[in-house]
């Protein structure tokens, strides 16, 4: 009996510890989110008519050319930004992992610096730097008498530029950590049996960092898809990214159910990537030590 009550005590203490965050999570996030999802598939309440199921709001969304173009624009920006991030961060991480020079330390600090810069500061800094009559524009005018500078400000390229900058630290951190898990001797063993540098990269290193690669891919995709501050401050008036579009629908057009529909759609798209993430993280590494 004594052991049983002790077991129950431990059990209770465990649940008591996780209860506060769990309750907050359920009451403030899951419940309202569930409510919102349900509302998007219900007909409006009218006197004398019972509420029924409907997909009208979603049909309306896809019937609206502006909504469609905003959704495609968001997906396009997300894919392009993620691709550019890999292009920039992979060489950087490889350098940080395999270089033993002192410059590597400086490069690491530079790569991690954006981590400490809030998005809104970054956006304004980029406006001052790359905007019309900004630093770059002025420099080109004065030094080269060149007046053809096309600012990325209020263009898709402005969003992409800032989002890439903003996501470099996280990407580099995860990739470098993943690369550090690959032991030197694993690479040397491959060199030893005759593999060239490229072959070692594609057949040894890449398969071994599959997991951090997928993690960084998923989290970047979700973060970029749902970004708000940077597209709001740097992006064009049309098309808009979903975060900006939702905010406008909600506060400027006062269309609450429209904003909810956009939110649920965004959530569904992100949850596909989220599912990939969860699968990657929880997958049993049958073949790994």
């Amino acid at each position, binding site marked *: 009996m004594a052991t049983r009550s002790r077991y129950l005590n431990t059990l209770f203490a465990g649940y008591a510890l996780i209860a506060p965050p769990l309750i907050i999570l359920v009451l403030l996030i899951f419940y309202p989110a569930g409510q919102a999802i349900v509302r998007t598939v219900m007909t409006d309440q009218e006197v004398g008519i019972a509420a029924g199921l409907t997909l009208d709001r979603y049909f309306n969304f896809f019937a609206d050319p502006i909504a469609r173009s905003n959704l495609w624009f968001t997906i396009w920006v997300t894919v392009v930004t993620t691709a550019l991030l890999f292009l920039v961060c992979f060489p950087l991480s490889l350098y940080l992992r395999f270089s033993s020079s002192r410059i590597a330390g400086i490069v690491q600090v530079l790569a991690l610096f954006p981590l400490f810069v809030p998005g809104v500061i970054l956006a304004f800094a980029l406006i001052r730097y790359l905007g019309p009559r900004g630093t770059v524009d002025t420099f080109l005018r004065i030094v080269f008498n060149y007046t053809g500078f096309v600012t990325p400000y209020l263009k898709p390229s402005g969003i992409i530029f800032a989002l890439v900058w903003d996501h470099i630290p996280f990407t580099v951190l995860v990739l470098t950590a993943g690369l550090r898990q690959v032991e030197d*001797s*694993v690479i040397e*063993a491959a*060199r*030893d*049996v*005759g593999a060239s540098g490229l072959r070692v990269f594609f057949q040894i290193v890449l*398969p071994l960092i599959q997991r951090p690669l997928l993690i960084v891919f998923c989290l970047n995709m979700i973060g970029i898809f749902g970004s708000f501050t940077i597209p709001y401050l740097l992006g064009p008036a049309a098309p808009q990214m979903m975060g900006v579009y939702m905010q406008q629908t909600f506060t400027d057009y006062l269309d609450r159910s429209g904003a909810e529909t956009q939110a649920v759609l965004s959530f569904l798209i992100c949850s596909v990537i989220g599912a990939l993430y969860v699968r990657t993280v929880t997958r049993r590494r*049958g073949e*790994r030590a």
Partner: protein
Amino acid sequence: MPTLDLINLRKQFGSVTNPVVAVNDLNINVADGEFLCILGPSGCGKSTALRMVAGFEEPSGGDVQIDQQSIINMPPNKRPTAMVFQKYTLWPHMKVYDNIAFGLKLRHLPKNQIDQEVQASLELVGLGRYGDRYPAQLSGGEQQRVAIARALVLKPKILLLDEPFSNLDALLRVRLREELRQIQRNLKITAVFVTHDQEEALSLADRIAVMSKGELQQLDKPATIYARPKTLFVADFIGAMNMLDGEVNGGVVKVGNQRLPSPAECVAAPAKIAIRPEDVIVTQTGEGAWHGRITQVSDLGHYRKVFVQSPDLGMLKLYLPKSIEINDGEMITFKPTRFLIFQGPLPPFEVKL
């Protein structure tokens, strides 16, 4: 006929103003089919030397030659050497078969030939049916066997092994050591084996190169290294040794209150006297007998290890046959039968009584 020559091989790390010399003018020649061990304490430069042969470290000077051809400008993937590493050597995302076949595939051999050679090399290390497993499903000993198979399947001119068994438990280490020796003998492959374990070196090697602080101390057959160590370091590092301070004077070396004969070539100067624990006999008290109190007796199977506290020589270690009845706390008298006299950096003089 693969031979390996390290010629004035040198490696220094650190800055120009503050260089750290890891390997200093190392000269070693390995004959065809020979099994050579490089032995030394950690940090003596033995692994650095091996890694320079494999191509993973660039020498600061000197040359590495295989069959009298310099390989110093070849990248590791072009060198006719194969290496077995200390740990984490198998690629965890590939099955055992693919681990071994990797190098053969790079050489574009036909599929059925690869199959045959992988199978043959797995059988060589006693893992004939393990091809379908992942490295994580193997024990540490099995993983190192696969690593050996992976190195041998490429038929390298020189097999390099960098402390391959040091992460395994003692029994397994001894077994794998014997298996490796057998395989090496059968294949007649030239091999260089780096280790800090003198027992491993003594039991494996045709010849041992003892290194200390980046320098070669002695390169000889195991028996010679043990019986005639050339330097104090080797005398102290290989096997157990009683090191006593002495003073040579006129054909006699004085150790504590004892006098031992010394060869005429010895100069009158301080000396180190090295006595192996087994080079003593128990005697009656009398002229030339040493005495002391037994402080500890350990039974080590076929002999006894005895610690003796001598009033003028300090603690001595003796290996005595079990036929002699001795107990803790008793007095014992004994005599050295053989010892070495070290004076300065010169090779020692051996004295047999």
